[in-house]
Each structure stands twice: as C-alpha cells, then as structure tokens.
C-alpha cells in the first residue's frame, strides 16, 4: 500500500468515524459506582484463558518457528 492509498484510507476512515467530543461529560455521576468497586477483589483469571495461555507456551516451545506468526497477530 503506497502513501497515496494510505491517505485515501485515512480520509475515508475520518469520514466514516468522525472524532468524538472528548470534552463530553458522563451522563451520570460515576463516583458511587467507583466507590462500590473499591472493596471488591479483582476477578480471578478464567480457567479457559489459563489453559489457552499454557497451550500457547507449549506450542511455541515445540515449534519456535511459530513465534513470529503469533507476534504478527498480537
């Protein structure tokens, strides 16, 4: 993709997704919700994520050539 294509894509993207007003205020007071969560313990890692991560580590250990492929999709 050359620079001209990139600029066209940027222009199209800006028209499809115009910038949002970053100064917009939240519609509600968020402090009560923040306060409620302060004492809550962080959620534990789901077992599926742990199994997936373990499998990925094992796979890269046996097939190091796959590491660049994983890095590309990260």
């Amino acid at each position, binding site marked *: *993709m050359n620079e001209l*294509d*990139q600029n*066209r*894509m*940027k*222009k*199209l*993207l*800006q*028209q*499809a*997704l*115009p*910038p*949002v*007003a*970053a*100064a*917009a*205020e*939240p*519609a*509600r007071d*968020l*402090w009560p*919700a*923040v306060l409620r*969560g*302060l004492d*809550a313990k*962080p959620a534990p890692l789901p077992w599926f994520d742990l199994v997936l991560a373990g499998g990925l580590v094992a796979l890269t250990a046996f097939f190091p050539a796959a590491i660049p492929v994983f890095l590309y*999709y*990260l």
Partner: protein
Amino acid sequence: MEHEPNDVLSRFQHGDLEAFVSLYRLHQRAVHGWILRIVRNPAAAEDVTVETFWRIYRAHARFDPARGFEGWARQVASHAALDWLRAARPERELAPEVIDDLPAPSAADAAVTAEIRCKTARAFSRLPPKLRIAATLAVVEELPHKEVAEALSISVAAVKLRVFRALRMLRKDLSSQGITP
C-alpha cells in the same frame, strides 16, 4: 488540566482514600474523554471509566509520583478500553443507536455515501483491537504519534506500524466488498 500537589500523589501511592478521591475529582473528566475517544460509545465509556478508576486504586502501590498522574491514568484507561474492545462484539459496538449518537462528519465528501461510511465503520470494527485503538487515536482523532505511543505503552514506530497494518487490512476488507477507496 490542573496539577495535583506532590503530597496528594505521595499519599495516593500509599493507598490514602482521600487522596484517591481528590485525584478522581481532578481527572475523571479527562479520563472519561480519553476513553470515549477509544470506545466511541457513551454508555461503554462510562463503564470503562469506572473500571479504570478501580484499576488505578488497586494499582496505587505501583504508581510513581515522579512521573505524574495524568499519563499513568491514561495508560491504565487505554488498557481498560482495549480490554473492552476485545470483549465487545463488533455488531454491538456499532449498533445503529451507537452510530446515531456519534457526530456527523463535518466535511463529508459527496462521493462517499452513507452506505460506504457505514461499511467502512463496520469493517473497522472487525479489525484486531490493538490495531483499531492505534488507528482510532492516530488517524480518527489525529493525535500525535508520540502521545498515542505513551498512552499505549509502545514505541512511536510500533504505533506507525499498527496504523499501517490497520489501514491495509481495512482496505482489503473493503475491496472484498467491492469498495475501492
């Protein structure tokens, strides 16, 4: 943005709730605005803002007062927003009511129809979240690459690469739908 005294930062680092409240009052608007730029969904931005301040409070011991609160809060917010992008389905992110809530483009090219804009937005929502967040901040919001890099805890070169990959994947997706930008 106002600057907080070092004393407040130091007390926050030690887990002082009052210091956290001060920092919340001072920064919640900026943090919410930053998140809204990324998730582009007002309701989700509120939820992610709450989640961000939970994470900030829990991570108080890792906070370095010498580096200031704003940049650190922005990093935490970016990661929370990225997690939201990963968890959200593209269809939900760009539901019609969400698109309606967003402002109309100010200088829309007459050749770019509403249908093309909609297809582009949907194709964009299908990109990997890591590419999308970089492209949203650098291209859509037109923020300097350095600012985006700091918020995402990556290098400027990595931001440029992610933006390039995002645009390339977007073009490929649109081309497969018969749209040639």
